Every structure is written in structure tokens, then in C-alpha cells.
């Protein structure tokens, strides 16, 4: 039994012909996209791998220690600040 709503709905959205191969096309295209998505690296997993305790002990902590040593060493090699008077004396000594 159809009522006003049925008539309205069927008139508002009439059936649309879809060709027979369309469903198969969608399945193959979507399978192809799923395979592409599988091959893309998942950055969340990569990050999770990086922050594992093993990674921290083996790589991250030695790298941080090396970076700290580098900073301390660079600091010791950096020229110390000299006062204007000192530079004047150096200049004066050279001039003589």
C-alpha cells in the first residue's frame, strides 16, 4: 500500500540506471587504492618504533650525550670575550 510519502519519495528520487560493470569497476579500483595505502609508510608506527625503550638506550641517549659533549667542547674552544682595554694593549704592542 502506498501513501503520500511513498509517492513523494519515489517521485523525488527516481531510479537511475547504473551499468552492469560499475560495481566490478569500484571493487577493483578500491582494491588498488587499498594496496597503495598499504605501501605508504605509516608515520605513526614509525614514531612508535622510534620511541621504544630499546631505541632510546641504543641510539637516542648516546646521540644526546655526544651532542652535549660537542657543545661543551665547542664552548671551551670559543674565543673569550676581551675588554676594549685589552684589545688596545694588543694593538699598542703590535704598533710598537
Amino acid at each position, binding site marked *: 500500500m502506498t*501513501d503520500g*510519502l511513498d509517492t513523494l519519495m519515489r517521485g523525488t*528520487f527516481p531510479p*537511475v540506471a*547504473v551499468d552492469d560493470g*560499475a560495481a566490478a569497476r*569500484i571493487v577493483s579500483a*578500491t582494491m588498488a587504492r587499498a594496496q597503495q*595505502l598499504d605501501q605508504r609508510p605509516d608515520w605513526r608506527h614509525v614514531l612508535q618504533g622510534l620511541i621504544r625503550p630499546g631505541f632510546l638506550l641504543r641510539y637516542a641517549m648516546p646521540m644526546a650525550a655526544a651532542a652535549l659533549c660537542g657543545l661543551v667542547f665547542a664552548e671551551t674552544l670559543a674565543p673569550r670575550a676581551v675588554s676594549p682595554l685589552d684589545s688596545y694593549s694588543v694593538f699598542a704592542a703590535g704598533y710598537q
Partner: protein
Amino acid sequence: MKGRQDGGAGDDGLLRAVAEGDHRAFRTLMERHVPILLGFAARVLGSPHDAEEVVQEVFVKVWTGAGKWQADGGARFSTWVYRVTLNACIDRRRLKRPEPLDQADELADSAPGSLDQAMARQRQDIVLAALQDLTEAQRAALSLHYFSQLSAPEAARILNLSVTAMEASLIRGKRALKAALKRRGIENLGDIQ
């Protein structure tokens, strides 16, 4: 309510396999739902080409979000996939929105039948907006009933419902849809036919 027995695993089992990256399960799930979803989307969009794109996007979403969907629990896959498809169709319609109806006088002059098309489109928008007011189960039942060529028992099978539950859902859904249309100023359904 029993799960589907045809084709071996039910949707939930297939979806669990899809969440673990099982391509064969994904293909089975698609072969089960794509033909009907395609007719459904084509009817809502009025374009088989757009429907193909929408259904493909929906299943890419299924592939990438299968694990998450399981974690959400609750809704059945079939109910969920019809809702997602309907929403994707509504979004697609918004993207392809033509001139507003208040500029339709110019349209009427420019091309024969343009005004009729614009009015039909507005009518569709009203009905789709009214459908959004329904509960998920009612919307799925009504959408399948009106936008697919399926009989009530077939639609019930897809939604994993008994025929009685499907019919009850349809009756409640129709009542709710009429009320939603009334709230949008459509008192007499014959007015907008």
C-alpha cells in the same frame, strides 16, 4: 536477530579481518554491499558517475578505519555504511550545488527545464535534510526502502533485522519523516510533488 549466514562470515567477522589488513575479506565485503550501495547513491545523487566515486570513497574509508570502527562498537556495519554513504552523497550534492533558486528566473530564461530542475533539486534537499532528523536505524531502513530497489525482506537481511523489525522501523521512520517534513513547512505531502 541473527547475523547473516550467506557467504560464510558475517559483516562483523569480515570487518575484523579487514582491520587486520585482509584483502580477501575486504573484497568479499565490497562484493556484498557495493552493488546495492551503488544503486542507492545513484538515486540520491541522480548521477551514476558521481555514485561510483562516492561508493569508492566510502570503501576506502572502510579500509582505513576498520579498526577504529570496531573500537566504536555499537552500530552494525550495514547500518553504518548506509549512513556514511548517504552523508557522502549529501556532501557531494553540496559541492555540486547549482545556482540558488532565487536566481532561478535567469535560469528559466537561459535553458528550457532549468527551473524545473532547480525546483526538483530543492525538493530533494528538503527531503534529505528531513532524513537527518531520524534515528540511525530509521534512516537506514527508510533509505534502503526508498533509494534501493530492494524488497522489505531483502532490506531486512542487509540490515541484519527480522522482517517484523524492519517493518516496525519503516512505520516509525515514515512517521518521523512526515513530522520532520512538517517542521520544514511541508504539511501536505502533495504540495511538493
